[in-house]
Every structure is written in C-alpha cells, then in structure tokens.
C-alpha cells in the first residue's frame, strides 16, 4: 500500500460564527483519485482551499510528505488547482496561459515550448496555442485549465468541481479524459464534486461529507452498497430508508413485517434504519411476497421502469425492468443481503445531517 502523501489532522475552520469544518481528519495516499463528495455547504471546497493554501485553518495541521505545510503560501506548495470556473487569464493566449507557471520557474524557452505542445496534445487541443480563452468552448477551456496545471508537474492536482459548468455529454467525456490523464501522469487527484455519479465513476476513494463532518470514507462500491448512515444512503443514489427494529441477528422487522437479513451484532430489538435500494426490490405476485402493496405511480425511465408501491403506509421506490400498471396488487420481496442495516444516528450532528437532506 503506497504511503500517505497528505495527512490532514484535526482541521477546523469557521467563517464568522459558521463552523464549516470541525476537527476533520483524513489522509490521502500517493496516486490516489480521492473525491470529496457532499452537498453544497458541506465544507468540501473549504477543505480543498485549505489544501491549496487559499484559506488558513483555525486549528489543525496539514502534512505533505510528512512536512507541515499549514502556513506555506499557495505559490510555495507542490500542488496545483483546477478551478471551478477555469480562471483562465483572458488577456493571454492559450500558450501564455500554459506557460505562466513555467515562466515563473524560469524554465528555458525550448522546455516551455515542448511542455506547451505536450500538454495541449494531452488534452487533445493541439494547435490552439495562439487562440484566446474566450474563443474556446467551456469544455475546451476546462481542458486548458487542466493543461495549465499539469505542465508544472505537481505531486497533487486539486480539482474544484471542474465539470460543474459543462453539459451532460461533455461531462461524461471529460470524466473518462480525467481518468486517462490520471493514469498517464501518475499523480494524485483530489476531486471535489456534489455529483455522486461523477464520484462513483472516477474515484478510488470517496469521502462523503456533510456539515463539516466526514460521513463515510470508502471505495465507490462500499459507499454505494453499504452506506453507514441515512445521509450517505440518501445522498448516494436513490434508496428506501425505513425505520426498523432488529428483532434478532439476521432478522429485521420493517413496518411490522419481519425480513430476513444478513446483519448481525445489534442488540435485541434495537431500533435501526434499514436501507433498500430501489433496484433490489423484486415485485412478485401478491401471495409470493413478504409484504403486499399496490402500484400507485409508474414512469418509464429508459433502462427501467420507476414505480411507487404503497405498502403498509409507506411509499416504496422500485426500479424494475418488468412493468406493473398502476393499481396492480403486487408482492414485495427483498433478498437478505440486499438489506443494509444502519445504526440510528447517535450524535446530534449526525441527526442534523440526517434531517438536513
């Protein structure tokens, strides 16, 4: 396992009376694609700005390869940032934009020329040297911003919602492009987004944040399949979150009906939250299901149908390739390993987080 490249220790930051980050701890390994994911105002951008050196934390330290860089000016840090709105220098040509950092480092002319050509090739924009930023489309500008950052050969690239301003198709293309870049360059990416799909597609590690706290750290699969609390479950993909009681190991009572599950280790009759993804619900004949319900809504989504089934006064969200017209009586069936059991939030903050969504 590669070493810790960046170690974030006990970082707190507030603006006026508004606490944005509270005693946050996190480390980032070399060559990792780490995504900070959360709704706006969760503190992810602030954390990125602290890493970039644009904000000073109220408390805590940032270690970079073991060295404390908390008080180091942005221009002295071995990381580069790709800003949300590109932040290209509009009065300079593309070549001048890309050469900006290199000129400061007093690199030779031929070196700079080579780098510009290489970087433009890398982002598929050869021949754009003498254009000005505002003659480029949003996607092209974003790629220039990336090119401008990577020619400096940073150890870490910080990306602040770099795709937020692009349309869907372009965004998807750029996602693959970024993964390709990361693999070719072998540098660490720290990526900030509120788009869970983006996070799931690109990341090695996802850090889900809310209200200044880390809610869960894990691989995309972990995060999706085993959300540790209601906030994560709700934020990542769609899900049915149900109040439930753990009757005993491997048996949970949801809305008064017992469902077999695979979780163990909870107390007897402990109140919990059960998460069931819409695509994990099988709709069967009423007599074959664990619970009985009626289809109340039906929408065709392309890959699947989205239905709402009312059962035991709860509206279940169901994704299925089979279509059941509105009014059909159906049975609800869930495989035991598709039920994710979560502890009820204990701390106030977690509760706040849960309520906030």
């Amino acid at each position: 396992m590669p070493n810790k490249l960046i170690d974030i220790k006990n970082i707190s930051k507030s603006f006026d009376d508004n606490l944005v980050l509270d005693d946050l701890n996190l480390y980032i390994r070399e060559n990792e694609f780490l995504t900070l994911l959360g709704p706006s105002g969760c503190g992810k951008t602030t954390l990125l700005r602290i890493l970039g050196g644009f904000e000073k934390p109220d408390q805590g330290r940032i270690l970079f390869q073991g060295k404390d860089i908390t008080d180091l000016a942005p221009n002295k840090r071995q990381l580069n940032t790709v800003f949300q709105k590109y932040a290209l220098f509009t009065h300079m040509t593309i070549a001048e934009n890309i050469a900006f950092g290199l000129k400061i480092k007093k690199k030779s002319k031929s070196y700079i020329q080579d780098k510009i050509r290489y970087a433009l090739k890398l982002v598929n924009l050869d021949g754009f040297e003498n254009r000005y930023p505002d003659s480029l489309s949003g996607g092209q500008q974003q790629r220039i911003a990336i090119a401008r950052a990577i020619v400096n050969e940073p150890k870490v690239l910080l990306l602040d919602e770099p795709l937020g301003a692009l349309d869907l198709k372009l965004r998807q293309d750029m996602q693959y492009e970024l993964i390709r870049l990361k693999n070719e360059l072998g540098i660490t990416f720290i990526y900030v987004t509120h788009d869970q799909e983006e996070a799931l597609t690109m990341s090695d590690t996802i850090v889900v944040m809310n209200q200044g706290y880390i809610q869960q750290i894990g691989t995309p699969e972990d995060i999706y399949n085993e959300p540790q609390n209601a906030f994560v479950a709700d934020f990542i993909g769609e899900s049915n979150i149900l109040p439930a009681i753990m009757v005993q190991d491997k048996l949970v009572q949801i809305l008064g009906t017992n469902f077999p599950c695979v979780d163990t280790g909870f107390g007897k009759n402990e109140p919990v939250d059960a998460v069931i993804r819409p695509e994990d619900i099988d709709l069967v004949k009423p007599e074959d299901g664990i619970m009985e319900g009626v289809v109340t809504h039906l929408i065709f989504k392309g890959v699947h149908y989205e239905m709402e089934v009312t059962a035991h006064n709860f509206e279940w969200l169901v994704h299925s390739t089979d279509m059941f017209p509105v009014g059909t009586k159906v049975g609800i069936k869930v495989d035991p390993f598709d039920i994710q059991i979560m502890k009820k939030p204990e701390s106030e903050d977690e509760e706040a987080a849960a309520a906030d969504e």
Partner: protein
Amino acid sequence: MKKTLQKIYLALILILLYAPILTLVVLSFNASKTRSKWGGFTGEWYVALFQNESIMNALYTTLIIAFLSALFATILGTMAAIGLQATKKKLRSVFLTIANIPMLNAEIVTGISLMLLFLAFRMTLGFTTILLAHITFNIPYVMLSVLPKLKQTDIHTYEAAQDLGASPLYAFFKVVFPDILPGVLSGFLMAFTMSLDDFIITHFTKGPGVDTLSTKIYSEVRKGIKPEMYALSTLMFVTVLFLLVLINTAPPKKLTKEERQKQRKAVRISRTIFRKVVPAMLVIVIVAGGFFYNSKQNFANGSNRVIVYNWGEYLDPEAITMFEEETGIDVVYEEYETNEIMYPKVESGAIAYDVICPSDYMIQRMIDNDLLAKINFDNIPNIKNIGQTYMEQSRQFDANNEYSVPYCWGTVGILYNKKMVKEPIESWSVLWDEDYKDSILMQDSVRDAFGVTLKYLGYSLNSTDRDELYEAQELLIEQKPLVQAYVIDQVRDKMINNEAAIGVIYSGEAIYCQQENPDLEYVIPKEGSNIWIDSWVIPKNAQHKENAEKFINFLCRPDIALMNFEFITYSTPNTAARELIEDPAIRNSRIAFPDASELEGCETFKFLGDKNDRIYNELWRQVKSK
C-alpha cells in the same frame, strides 16, 4: 409630432447649456476689445495668451499638479479600492460612504478644512499644499472608477496565478491589473480632469506666487475681462471636454468576441501608453516647466526675495522686472480682490507676506490689531517725493505716519453719460431721481453704498449713529427699484458700452472710461464723498523686511510711480511723478488731481470696529434682500 417636440425640447436644453460657452468661444475670436462689438475674426488673443509668461507659468503649474496629483491619487486610490474589495461587505460600504463624503462635501468646506489642516501642521502654503489637497480630493474619484472593475474581476484568476507559483505581487500585476486597467486609466483621467478644473480648493490652499490656470483667470478677471481670458477659458473648456469624452468612451461591460479582441488590443496599447508615453510626457512636462521656472527665476530659493501682496492689476509688471534686475531680489507676487479677502489671510499668519497694499480703514484695523511693523524710513529716502497733503491725509488712519507709505488715492463719485442726462450732475440726489429708473449703477459694497447715502443726507460716512444709519438704510431701500444693477467692476464696461446713464465709480476707473468713451463725465458731488488712500505696509511677521523697504522705496521713485500711474490710472500721491506726466490734459485732470476745494467735504473711511461692521453688514443685507 411627438418626436419633433422631443427633439425641439432637447435642442432647447442643449442651447441653454452651451450658449454661454459658445459666447465665450465666439468672443475669443473677436478682434474688438469690447464685448458689444464684433470687430472681425482674429487669432491674436491666442497668440497673446501664449506669449504671456505668467499665464504660461500657471499653465505649467496646472499641468504638473494635475499630472502628479492624478498619478498619486491613482496609486493610492487603486490600492484603497483593492483593500476595500477584500474587506467584508458591511465594512466596505461604511468605508465607501466615508470615502465619498469629501466628494459630496461643499468644495469650499473641503478647501477651508485643508487649509486649516496645513496651517495646523505649520506647513507653508504653496505648491506642495496644492498638490496634497488635489491628491486628497482625487482619491475618491479613482476608487469609484476602479471598484466596479475589481468587482467584475474573477478573484479565482488571482488565486490561480498564485497557485501556479506567482508571488501575490506578481500575480496582481500580471493577472489582476490588466483586468482593472481600464478602470485605473479612467480614474487617472477623471482625477486629472478634476484637478485641472478645480478652483475653490486651490484658491484656499495656494500660496503666494503659485497660480493654477483657474486661480490665474480669477485674479485676471477682477479688473475686467481681457480677451486673452476668453481664449484661455475656451482652451480649458476644450481640454476638459476632450478628457471627459475619453473617460466616457471607456468600453462597455458586455462585449462580443470581436470587441473583446479589440479591447485586448486597446489594453496592449494602453499598456504601452502607461509604460512609455506617460513617463515620456512626465519628463517633457517637468523639463519644459523647469526651463520656464529657471528663465523666470521666480522660484529661486534662498532668502533674497520679497513677497508682495497687492490688489489685482495694481502694479505694472514691467516695474517688477525692473526691480528684480536692479536689486537682484526676487519678487513673489500675489493678488487679492478686496481688503476683506486680504485681511484674514494676513491675520492667520499662513503666509508671511513682506509688503501689502491695504486701504485706509483696513490699515487702521491692522494697526489696531497689531499686525503691522513700523517702517524704517531711513531706508525709504524717496518718501520725499510723496506730497505732504497725502501724508497729512494718512494721519486719519496712521496717526504718526509710522506704518504706511501712500501709493494710490482717489475719490468716489458719479460717472455719467452726457448724452443720456438732461443737465450736468452735481449732487448725489440724482441717484434717487425717478427719471433715471433702470439706468443707475450702484456699488455692490456695504461701505460704499452707505457712504454715498450718508453723505447725501449730510452725515459723516463713518457714522455709527443708529438713527442716521436707519435713515440711510431707508433711502437705499427706496432707491432699489431705480437701480439697474449692484455691481463692482462692471460699472466700467457698462458705462463704456452705453448700457447705463449714471454709475457710482472710483475716480481711477473714471479716467479709463473717459478715454474709451468721451461722452462720459465724472463728478465729485457737492455734498462731499469718500477720499481713499491705498498705502504700502509691512506686516509684523514679514521675513524680508529690508527687501520690503527697498521695494517701497523703489515704488516711490518718480519714474516708477509714473509708470504705475499710467498702468493703473489711479491718482498718484507722488508729486514728483505728477510733474513728469507729459500730457497736460492728464497732468491737470480734475478727475485724477481734483482741486483742494473739491475735496472739502471728503472723508476717508475709518475702521468702525467689529460691532459696527456687523451692524452695517446686517443693514446692508436687509437692503439687498428686500
């Protein structure tokens, strides 16, 4: 229909706005010296203007102050704007409001407070104080034009530059500055224009010998407007207009791609302007101006100079040059319009004048307030040329002839147009004659107006008797409907141009008027009038008293006194000089040198004390506002 009406309305407004300026422009090309006649097209006034050294000097001072103040204000204002932009919104708006107050504040208040501040710090009023004042009032204008540009600027580009390794300063100049440059430039131009334009603040913060164009024009027009001034004002108007057009054609916010390309070019061009043209201009202006000053040697430092504070146009400039050549003493020359403007400046001690020329009653007041130094008459042998009569007259305000040397004198009388009156005038009563309704010009000055009326009533013009004053006030109110205008300097022009039949005027002006218009006649009414004397005095705080005495002695020389008599046309007390007058008509002029019999009922004004001054002023105010 509606459209034409709109257009007519617009045209009307434009005419109203620009008619005065158009008149000025037209007059600046008028070959005739008087306003009322068109004497053909000429550029002669413009040529004369550029040959006038003192105006060219003022021009240089104006430009250098405008340039330097705009430059410093631009630097300071831009820095302030950047600082403000970085502060929190609430604090920013508070700061902005505070910063904008001086801009909305009455200029006169700003001017006076700046003057007081400079005096409090014991600074000598002069070039530096004007410059500081201009920088001060220019800063808000720069801030105001830079702030919006800063707001449009993406803060992230600044951060991006730092992120790429730029130091904060490098990032600012490389990335932020090009973005706000249009705002900085228009702020600079705005400041330059404001400085060029300013009169009031300059007026209060300037010292002797330093004039900007506006204060120069002001001091020149006091004695009647010379056509060169039309030319100068026209040039100033055109310059300011040009600058304003430059400022207002700054690029609009939203731009198409093409326009942005153009703008980028413009930024490049303006960058060259900033880096090359502007410094080059600065060097040229400073060097050229330096030559000016050197050639004039007006500003030669060192103590060998004399600071003269005199009425406007009350000394032949030629005489000053002669004095400088003969003695090697530099004359720093400053003018005032009235005794009342002069007095507080001397009293405040802001400027250590060496020699001043106040009128009789004001000399008395200055003696009373211990502002004057006794003159060492051993240094003024030429005092012998001054007629004994005038030394005697002077005793009315300078009891022992210790403080003053008479320079000019005259009477107040009636100037009338022989062709516009029925019979020769000999009494003040004509000023109350219904037949001359709307043809009478009165002096717009409290002591002159009351003096004339008190004399008409048979009282002393130094009366402090309440009943007499009330009686005079009633008469003045009664006279009001008959009066065409209350004026000071315009009596001359109006009488020359046959615009009025009768005017109260000073004798010296009368001689000039008669030369211009032979139909005019001057009379000292039989009830008696005011005889006034303006004399040279030396203030207590004078730094160059001996030079001042040399200067006074020089002016008492018969040839110099004659020069000045011919220049000013006011009567000279210098009997030796009178003998030198070639034209017997003038030498024996009854206006310039009336018989003793004519002066029988005449008195000089006396300083009546602050309390009585207030009473006079209040009574006069009531007259004017009725």
